[in-house]
């Protein structure tokens, strides 16, 4: 009888400890999840800012200005355009 009781007490103790550790692990994982989600939001914000920067740098006004002034480019005249038939290419 006393032995059975001892075994039951040990089992109960093991269960209690594993519950504690499971809870602790879940909280740790949750903190990690939180950190990952925060990082996701931060990256999303950064993505938006980079998109903004890209759009600003690739703005047609800017591209045309650099093409004309820095690179000395100009639109081709009608005589310089040869149209190629898509089928014969």
């Amino acid at each position: 009888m006393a032995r059975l009781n001892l075994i039951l007490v040990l089992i109960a103790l093991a269960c209690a400890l594993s519950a504690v550790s499971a809870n602790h692990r879940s909280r740790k994982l949750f903190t990690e999840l939180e950190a990952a989600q925060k990082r996701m939001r931060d990256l999303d914000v950064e993505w938006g800012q980079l998109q903004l920067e890209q759009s600003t740098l690739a703005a047609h006004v800017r591209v045309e200005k650099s093409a004309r002034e820095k690179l000395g480019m100009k639109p081709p005249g009608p005589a310089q355009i040869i149209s190629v038939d898509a089928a014969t290419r």
Partner: protein
Amino acid sequence: MKSIKFSRSPLLSERLPPWRQRLVLVVLLGAFAALIIRSLYLQGFNSEFLGDKGRARFERVLDISATRGRITDRHGDVLAVSTPVRSIWAIPEDAQLTPAQVRNLAILLEMDVREINRKLAAERDFVYLKRQLPPDLADRVSALKLPGIHQKNEYRRYYPAGEVMAHMLGFTGVEDNGQEGIELAFNSQLAGKPGSRRVIKDRRGNVVEDVESIHPPLEGKDIVLALDSKLQYLAYSHLKRSLEENRAKAGGVVILDARSGEILALANLPTYNPNNRVKLVGAQLRNRALTDTFEPGSTLKPFTAALALESGKVRFDTPVQTAPGKLTLGTATIHDAHPHGMLTVAQVIQKSSNVGAAKLALSMTPEQMWTMFDGVGFGTPLKLGFPGEVGGRLRPAKTWKPIEQATMAYGHGISVTLIQLARAYQAFARDGDLVPISLARIDTPPLNGKQVFSAQTAREVRAMLEMAVLPGGTAPKAQIPGYRVAGKTGTAHKLEGGAYANKYVASFVGFAPASDPRLIVAVMVDEPSNGKYYGGDVAAPVFAQVMGGSLRSLGVAPDAPAKPIVMTSAEPVREEM
């Protein structure tokens, strides 16, 4: 004192009165019952209140912010995006700062020390010191650890294309709510809804457990517009150059996709920079192409001709006598400043004869004309959902006098918006039908729209419009090397205080390639005042540049030899007003 063992105590042998035993039992039972009742009361009756109190000790409600959706063009280029910023606010009563602290704050916020002191002296519980500060700067402010100074997360909207797209996109206010343009029209989809959730925080402030989400946040949806930013830039830059050359007051360009009805570009001038709206006046804000009407002038003649063809009374080669260049109806006279003599219906359009158009109109009833104008969408707003959209003026047919019917044939006494005009030309660019036009990108283009003219009529008018840009027409300057073009000029006197003034609106509406129209471009230039004012001189060149550039950028196959049919320096036929 002699000690005795407890078991030998004489007290034990003494008998107690029986009531004492019972009294103790009753008291103990009573106490036990009181405990049970108390615990029932706490556990059952009062448990919710106590539970809340307990949870309030360790649970926190966190707000989750939602970002406003991005606006992109049809290729995914970002046109408007929100990024987080912070606003610095203060509780003046708590903000007891030393002069040195105020100075530091003023340097970071780039504000005047006196202004900060004035704001902090306010008799209020809440003042904004500076709104919409970049996050890195805001971090430096919070590093000062000033009492009574707080921060709030907000969003600021940026428009990388600046003034090029200003009218189309509109802008948002400081609270990130749409106030103009697409931002307002699509506000309910763009705006996100912030949510909140309940969490358990530990001693160090970390979230350790998610209890429940009270409202899940609703992120704003991204909007994909039909706009093509390259075409938009082409339209904007050529319109701008033309306005400068012609010293015009205002102008607008609309590019429509003839197949799908999408608005590929819509540019207005004067414009503004939506990123910096400090000195904004009403004229800059107006999206003229959608909200301002004008008398279109000769650009309406093709509709008169189409109706005449449709009624079966004339064919495209039926002769119309336009000599001697005037037509008197009652007390009023319609003039052709350059009399043409005998013209065919097609030549009436090509040479833009007022008398010819009036004669065609008078062969029909006012009701027929009204039904046609109404059918192509004049007089009713397009219902794009765009704020401030108007429908123009088309009076009921019953009130028309013959002279009014005749002037309406060449676009006077009726007013339209530029976008309505472009949309109505769909009927000629397509085979006589109109499809709804759209601000947002359409993935499956509509097949057939509302039929307003027969396909045969549309093809004949298309041929007439092609003649108008050929030698002998009013708009050889609208020619584009490599493409067949069809279009019509318009030059109208402006109405001022009920009378026609010596100010003009030059316009051109056309489409290309004429063999299989892909794009419709409408150009309007308001009050050109540098000598030239004819639609064929002012608006047609803008059309040619915008259309040519757009077709090339879309990779539309040329349908004509690359050489221009006539040098564009040749003098065009003067159209009538």
